């Protein structure tokens, strides 16, 4: 069985770097078909990478995304593979190829280009601080153990 855990976001953009921090932290534990990847790059490239590799049985995306929740809120869900309309997909492709990296763009564009397996999980955290620099907001720091455990648990099929 092959599992890929993708840390999505930007380094040096506070809470937006959390996804990459999680995969950096867990990467030394990669083994037995569990891989960790820094996804600080755009989804078109990711899609192409996936198409070149043997298929994964599960992909787990982890990252921060602002949805207006309480900072530090963790939301875990299984991706339903429902796509928005073509217009929105193209908007997200446009965003992606002009430099934007976000959890939603990544999942939608990868799905639109048929790169994802059936079993996809998303672990989100609500950011508290999205400004430049290193380190995380207190709300997010407090949730790092929980989100790390959540991601780790999803590597076990």
């Amino acid at each position, binding site marked *: 069985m092959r599992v890929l855990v993708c840390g999505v976001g*930007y380094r040096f953009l506070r809470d937006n770097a959390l996804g990459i921090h999680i995969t950096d932290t867990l990467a030394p534990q990669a083994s037995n078909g569990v891989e960790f990847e820094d996804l600080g790059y755009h989804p078109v490239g990711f899609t*192409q990478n996936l198409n*070149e590799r043997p298929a994964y049985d599960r992909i787990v995306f982890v990252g921060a995304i602002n949805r207006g929740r309480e900072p530090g809120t963790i939301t875990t869900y299984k991706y339903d593979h429902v796509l928005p309309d073509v*217009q929105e997909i193209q908007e997200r492709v*446009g*965003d992606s*190829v*002009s430099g*934007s990296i976000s959890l939603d763009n990544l999942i939608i564009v990868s799905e639109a280009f048929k790169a994802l397996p059936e079993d996809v999980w998303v672990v989100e955290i609500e950011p508290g601080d999205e400004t430049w*620099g290193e380190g995380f907001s207190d709300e997010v720091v407090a949730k790092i153990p929980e989100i790390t455990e959540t991601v780790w648990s999803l590597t076990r099929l």
Partner: protein
Amino acid sequence: MCFKNLPIEFDAAGNASLKPGAANPYSYTEVPAPTPIEDDPERMRELFARNGAVRRVDFDPVTRVAGALAFHTVVDLENRQVMETASMATLFRGYEIILKGRDPRDAIFISSRACGVCGGVHATASALACEMAFGIKPPPMGIVARNLLLSVEYLYDHPIHLGLLAGPDFSEPAVRETNPEIWERALNTRCEGEVTHGYALMSDLMTDLTPLTGKLYLEGLYYTRLAREAYVLIGGKYPHPQTVVPGGVSTTIDASDLNEIMLRVVKYFDYGRKTAAIWDDLASFFYEVNPKYKEIGTRPANMIEPGQWDDPYAYDGTYKNADAWGRERWAPPGVIRDGELVTTSLTMLNAGVEEFVEHAFYEEWAGSGNEYYKHPTDPNGNPLSPWHPWNKETIPKPTATSWKEKYSWSTAPRWDRTAMETGAYSRIWAAAQTGPEAFRKSPYLHSTGTSMQIFLPKAELPNTDIEWKIPETWGAFERNRARAYCILYTAAIAYDNLQLAYKLLKAGGPDARMSTPYEMPKDHRIGVGLWGAGRGYLTHHLEMDNGVLENYQILTPSTWMASPKDPFGNPGPYEEAVLATPLLENYEKPEDFKGIDVLRAIRSFDPCMPCTTHMHMDGRTVSREIISCACGADEVHEHH
């Protein structure tokens, strides 16, 4: 004499110095920005009384994650004019501050994170800056390997822009929606380039530009992949390469690697021919339909191009010899003013750069320009401004957004106090104007002074001679057309460098090494990486002491082009281009307005930021639409 506005003069030997007699040579008097229409109730009242179709349209980011661009306009839909523009970078990334106090080599890996698309060029610009500071140069094979990395990065970047970003604006769905009469005409218009690209009718070509499903869109996607495959053979990873180091490339190359890259590069010969023919046909067709399409995104042809692709035997990494090795580049440096090449000197290009912050969320660091500043000259003794990147301090100072005062996180870079644009087109333009005597000798490229001729081996398509000619008018269509020709220009350079790599590999010896050993200096040094990104100009200026960075300044193509107004009252390139754009879209009622011409104008620059060039009235991408009214009160519609 390349400067008109800076206080620099040249002696008979061409040496630059400050003009004598000026007490404060670089100081200036700020020209106040015009009062925005919304802040002028009298003007709003007058406009509304005369014309009820004036409205504010803001293009905001879909995602507010990466250094995003928002674009503010006030448009007069009755007279089909853009009345006011403001380009706004909405996020500060802070790399200059993050890098302070670090080992200079960290900048290679950290700065590549500035972009999720083209990080390789940042890594290389950073390595070049380090080389200058450390006093080292790569062996010839290391330089050739770097040239190959850059080539395939561009072969990745150009199809992304043309196929996935700009192309959809000319696709069947976009044209049918915004100008159905043009679609009707496309159904009956034959393509001149059919023999090359295979489309008999313009309508067929436009159908295949359709996002997600069109053959040309998907082909663009395929070619981005092909180039990325070539990149990782040397770079290890993309877009954040692992092998770019000061002094070369930290990997090995064998004949098998070169063969793998060659197999991919040759595929761009026909793809480039086809793409050039497609963008030739698109420009011809739209110009024929309405010559005013030449004015979409127009502005003076003022461009800046640092050049790239170093000659493996000329490049020595020194600032002292930068003019000499710069001119040996496959893309030589150049500053173009009103369409004419005014300098090919890398040091003069560097000396002319300033960054202003009157309309940006930063604190002024140079006062009035009269005070002491650290680098009054460059290492060759040429004068530098207090606002030059080597003298710049990044001091963020966020305030409320005001279109008259401060409204962007982008500074306003200027060369000789003139707003410059940059891109693949400035690259080929400067190379074309360099002329047959000065342009490097290459079996595949010939600069005529007014055009660039490209000779590539025959693949499957007819081997027609390719020639990009400097256009008579400058605007969105010409930017895209030049970008298409740059696929061939880049492929020719890649092909040339591949053959050099084979020769070096065969000869072996010190020249075939990939990198050079060095020791980190501990004393005070400065350096600059003068390089390019797919989207144009890229420089990294560094200053180091005791083995760590004291200052690091990154200047990107989008900083030049998304810049806000400068203190001299001049708009940035996006602002200027959109202001000059006629609204040729077919709409009967203001609410039908889609903004396609504005979008085409902005996208032709290939903004390296998630720009809200996605204007739709139905959803979350237009954040606010305000209809001016006689009382000056705004009706605000929030969309989420």
